[in-house]
């Protein structure tokens, strides 16, 4: 019997994309749309990435509303569906809502995975599965990726491997703890005292998961829970039950601000020795189990040895606004690791690049950026007939701007009295690059968490900022806004 021929054999490509989760699939889809010759490699046997395994206890924390006031095939619907990948073809759009059982407006892990598999299948996205990226080197300006199948040479590599490798803080004795990823069966915590190290997503998720079983649960980490920020965060949806119990004085569940000095084994039990961070004093806890919910890191292989600069204790690559390593030219990241580009961070706000809703747009912008850089060609730009209506429509309903608040903006350039749509780009790139007179529409958040649409006007090289009044229904296409924006652009 003849062997089935696998796609993308080792060799020379313009771009090599590594990873077949949502970031890799979305990047490959848009590179293909732009005609960029690339290989998609994955060590997995099928698409889906982290959603084959995580989250363990809960549904996703990003919404998909199967019914919405706009058509599922419309661009505007993307704002109602934060989990489907993007596509031009109507039959490839909004695949996740069609697979949901509607028990909740957050898909389950299995529904999300099915949506990704359906996308890869229906789009005919090929990948070389079972091919593991092993090491990396430069040959001149080209990158060489050594894999289990051989060498791939490319002008740019896009790593879309998620942030999925368990990471442990450097705490003496934390090796006695199970990591979040090893905590599958909640029943194993029946009648046990548990200390969870970490108070972010996975810490609250695991605590919520074992609440009905454990005898007592302590969540501890140096950083205080910012309840005001959490009130506006996707995390609140299902994870905050343990915090709620603690805040209302419930016995047996505690959420404390401590640095963990060390963990010691005392017979069958573990002793956690802590020091207060927002209060003075020390506390010791004797527990049956310690769970390290200290998060994940991007699987970076040998890139740090090659000179990759990272943030967050080496966990995340430090990236430029177009998601290129700040230190390794030609090395790009897509998917969850694209959070390494923080953007202008106005009022401390970061990009929404840690979930599919945000990084699917990053992938489209990245594909366009790579096409321009490798080919020197730019897709044709459309003229904008009515500038004010265009900008107001974008500020009211552009999903890219509403998801990637303060990170992505829509740009319209002006020359000789006519206007041209320059597409969606990182706001930092618009603000910091010289260019012709132009307008950039961005949706931002003020100090109080209120959404503020913002227009940037570049004239003669200088950029000025104009904030629009907040509207309670987020409708920015009415007469007062038309008047305001007409005044700004005239």
């Amino acid at each position, binding site marked *: 019997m003849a062997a089935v021929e696998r796609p993308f054999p080792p060799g020379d490509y313009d771009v090599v994309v590594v990873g077949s989760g949502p970031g890799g699939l979305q990047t490959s889809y848009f590179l293909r749309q732009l005609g960029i010759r690339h290989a998609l490699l994955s060590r997995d046997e099928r698409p889906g990435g982290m959603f084959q395994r995580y989250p363990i206890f809960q549904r996703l924390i990003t919404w998909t509303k199967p019914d919405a006031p706009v058509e599922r095939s419309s661009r505007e619907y993307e704002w109602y569906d934060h989990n489907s990948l993007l596509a031009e073809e109507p039959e490839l759009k909004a695949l996740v809502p069609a697979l949901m059982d509607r028990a909740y407006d957050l898909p389950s892990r299995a529904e999300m995975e099915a949506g990704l598999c359906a996308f890869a299948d229906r789009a005919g996205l090929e990948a070389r599965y079972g091919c593991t990226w092993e090491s990396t080197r430069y040959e001149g300006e080209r990158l060489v990726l050594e894999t289990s199948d051989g060498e791939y040479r490319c002008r740019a590599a896009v790593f879309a491997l998620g942030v999925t490798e368990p990471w442990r803080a450097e705490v003496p004795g934390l090796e006695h703890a199970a990591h979040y990823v090893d905590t599958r069966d909640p029943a194993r915590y029946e009648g046990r005292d548990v200390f969870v190290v970490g108070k972010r997503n996975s810490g609250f998720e695991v605590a919520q998961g074992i609440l009905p079983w454990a005898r007592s649960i302590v969540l501890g980490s140096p950083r205080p829970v910012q309840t005001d920020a959490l009130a506006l965060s996707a995390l609140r949806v299902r994870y905050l039950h343990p915090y709620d119990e603690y805040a209302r004085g419930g016995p047996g569940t505690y959420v404390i*601000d401590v640095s963990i000095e060390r963990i010691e084994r005392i017979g069958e039990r573990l002793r956690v020795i802590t*020091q207060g961070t927002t209060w003075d004093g020390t506390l010791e806890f004797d527990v049956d189990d310690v769970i390290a919910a200290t998060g994940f890191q991007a699987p970076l292989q040998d890139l740090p040895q090659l000179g990759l*600069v990272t943030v*967050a204790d080496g966990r995340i690559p430090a990236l430029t606004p177009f998601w290129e390593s*700040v*230190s390794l030219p030609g090395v790009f990241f897509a998917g969850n690791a694209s959070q390494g580009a*923080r953007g202008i961070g106005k*009022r401390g706000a970061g990009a929404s690049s840690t979930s599919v809703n945000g990084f699917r747009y990053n992938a489209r912008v990245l594909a366009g950026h790579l096409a321009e850089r490798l080919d020197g060609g730019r897709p044709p730009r459309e003229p904008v007939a009515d500038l004010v209506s265009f900008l107001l429509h974008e500020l009211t309903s552009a999903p890219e701007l509403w998801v990637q608040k303060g990170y992505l903006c829509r740009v319209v350039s002006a020359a000789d009295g006519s206007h041209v749509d320059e597409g969606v780009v990182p706001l930092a790139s618009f603000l*910091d690059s010289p260019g012709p007179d132009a307008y950039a529409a961005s949706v931002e958040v003020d100090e109080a968490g209120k959404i503020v649409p913002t227009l940037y006007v570049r004239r003669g090289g200088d950029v000025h900022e104009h*904030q629009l009044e907040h509207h309670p229904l987020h409708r920015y296409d009415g007469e007062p806004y038309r008047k305001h924006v007409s005044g700004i652009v005239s």
Partner: protein
Amino acid sequence: MSIAETLGQLALFADLTPSQLEAIAHSHEEDVFAAGERVLRRGLSGGNFYVILEGEASVELDGESRAKLARGDFFGEVSALTGEPPTTDVVAVTMLRCLVIPAPQLEQLLLDRPQLMLRMLRMEARRLRSTLEWQP
């Protein structure tokens, strides 16, 4: 070296205990900028307070360098504390690693840690004195 350990070596944070430094390091993001990237933008609202952990930056006005900043220096405090947009740009000269503290959180941090506030005030006073010395 962890961010908390790096902070512990900087004059601004010299009075804080290791666990207080850990709380600061865990509560705020770290950001790295490539050489040439703009960090603080003149005239634009919403700038943050930055502490340089590694690398060098330049304070620029109309593209001309007015001062150099290095490890342990901080910038963005004037606009963070007054709510006014920055009056200069700050641009990374080398690769620049910073701790980023948004304006509202800076205010709370200074109120929570008066020793930090005093250190910052002293450093600010020195800057003011050297600025005045430059005047003809």
